[in-house]
């Protein structure tokens, strides 16, 4: 990129992710930033491209018994168990403040059945302030023997299709990396009508407490997040970018500006930061500034020019 450097404020940082308009490409990942107010002492959530709120289900859920989290090498496992107050409480208790703060809100929904996804989509469709729906499809389908929605192309197609037919909002399925063929899953989501893809959710893992000689997590298995999974996330996004023509919200292990650049270069139009916030609450703002500076130094008039740059020959 031999362009002339620009002033940072001359870089257009806005991105449009399949209809989700964001002032910059940096979001906080679902389940790691609560409902936007938990980190209010550290920065204004309205500065973010979007806040993806904690996963929401039809009914309230108490979540799993503790221990729910454990640190692993350059990562962590979580088995929160989708603790949340249910969709009605989300709308009545949390949305008013998010609206008042001017936050771009992406709701993240999870269902036990295909029908629940449809109901959730319908219920959230006209709620003021919600800009898009992210679909957590790493949940067991209780009607299909607990097989995860996200591991079967057919079920992915059906979930996306169901949600699309119940909402006008941009629909962003969040792909599970625990699959043999991520491109097949992404293609199924595209056929189902997805407007964009979020990738990746956590890798399924576990840890053992050798002192107790038992799995550390009460739930035995948990989702692996953090820097450890970055190489897998980058690989999957690279593969999907080459074969599927949907914008990608990329994340999994971002803890620095350089990490975010890697994600954009392999094909992410925007990035999400999860575990990285626990390490450094200022990280999302640092990434926004860092991306802008990088673009300016390399003479890119728009941050969009970075997307997929590592694919060029």
């Amino acid at each position, binding site marked *: 990129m031999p362009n002339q450097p620009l002033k940072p404020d001359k870089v257009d940082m806005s991105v449009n992710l399949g209809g989700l308009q964001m002032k910059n490409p940096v979001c906080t990942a679902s*389940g*790691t*930033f*609560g409902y936007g107010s*938990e*980190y209010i*002492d*550290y920065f204004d959530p309205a500065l973010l491209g979007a806040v993806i709120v*904690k996963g929401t289900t039809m009914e309230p859920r*108490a*979540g*799993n*018994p*503790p*221990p*729910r*989290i*454990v*640190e692993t*090498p*350059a*990562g*962590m496992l*979580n088995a*929160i168990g989708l*603790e949340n107050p249910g969709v009605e409480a989300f709308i009545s208790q949390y949305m008013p403040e998010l609206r008042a703060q001017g936050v771009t809100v992406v709701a993240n929904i999870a269902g036990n059945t295909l029908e629940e996804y449809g109901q959730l989509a319908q219920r959230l469709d006209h709620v003021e302030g919600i800009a898009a729906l992210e679909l957590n499809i790493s949940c067991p389908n209780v009607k299909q023997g607990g097989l995860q929605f996200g591991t079967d192309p057919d079920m992915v197609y059906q979930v996306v299709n169901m949600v699309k037919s119940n909402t006008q909002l941009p629909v962003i399925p969040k792909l599970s990396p625990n699959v043999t063929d991520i491109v097949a899953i992404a293609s199924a989501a595209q056929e189902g009508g997805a407007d964009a893809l979020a990738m990746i959710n956590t890798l399924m893992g576990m840890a053992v407490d050798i002192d*107790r000689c038992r799995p550390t997590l009460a739930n035995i298995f948990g989702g692996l997040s*953090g*820097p450890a999974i970055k190489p897998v996330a980058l690989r999957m996004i690279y593969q999907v970018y080459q074969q599927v023509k949907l914008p990608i919200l990329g994340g999994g292990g971002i*803890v620095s500006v350089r990490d975010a650049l890697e994600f954009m270069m392999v094909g992410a139009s925007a990035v999400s930061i999860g*575990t990285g*916030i*626990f*390490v*450094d*609450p*200022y990280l999302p703002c640092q990434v926004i500034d860092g991306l802008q500076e990088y673009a300016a130094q390399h003479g890119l008039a728009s941050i969009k020019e970075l997307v997929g740059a590592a694919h060029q020959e």
Partner: protein
Amino acid sequence: MPTLESALVISNNQVSSHMFEMELAAPQIVPFCEPGQFVHLRVNSLNDPLLRRPLSLYDVDKKRGTITLLYKVVGKGTTSLAQLHADEYVDVMGPLGRPFSYPPAGQWAILVGGGVGIAPLLYLARRLKEKNYPVRVLYGTQSSSELVALDRFRQLGVQTVAATMDGEADYQGLVTDLLYQQLSGQEVEYLYTCGPEPMMAEVAEYARQYGLNGEVSLEEHMACGVGACLGCARKLKDSDEGYVKVCKDGPVFGLYEVELDLAPR
């Protein structure tokens, strides 16, 4: 208001075979510190350990703008912390969590600490003293060489009785036995306790027997420290209302509010 600051290490001294005392200049954090709260430290700038580590406020010097931490080296996070030298910086978030409340007027404050669980009780004792509460401290450790906070309590001028198993302190035996022996029914007492859970459970049992009230400070593995990740869950006692979060709803809870584990984890 909690904040994040790069704090200068003033000193970081070994005070027993596994314990260290670290003083940090944290002028932005200090004004908001209340006893029972904690700070969340990033022990180095690497990915190992990845997560922050929670440590209680052991002491706070508002004039000097410093906080002091007392920590036991148990794993890689605390090992990294112990390697910090004076004049280096460490990234501190805080103060976090719900602080201790003060006793109802006229009650004695009884502080029962075990091992490194003594940490949050020193700053509490200082503030209770300032507010002219009558304070008594019962402090238990395995051996007398681990009574690293004793001098600090005595310097504060609060009555402190130490229990160790080796018989080289005021009392030979468990601090909870000392509790029963020394205090039963003498005054109306408000109990504060921090230490191993079986010890705290025993203190709660003592309180139940004498109809006393008080608070307990709990630990749970943490990621965010601010209530965002829902990782540090604890079950409320006799309740189906789900889980409280130690980082935000605690670490201080009412003595009867949460289930205490009688078996060591």
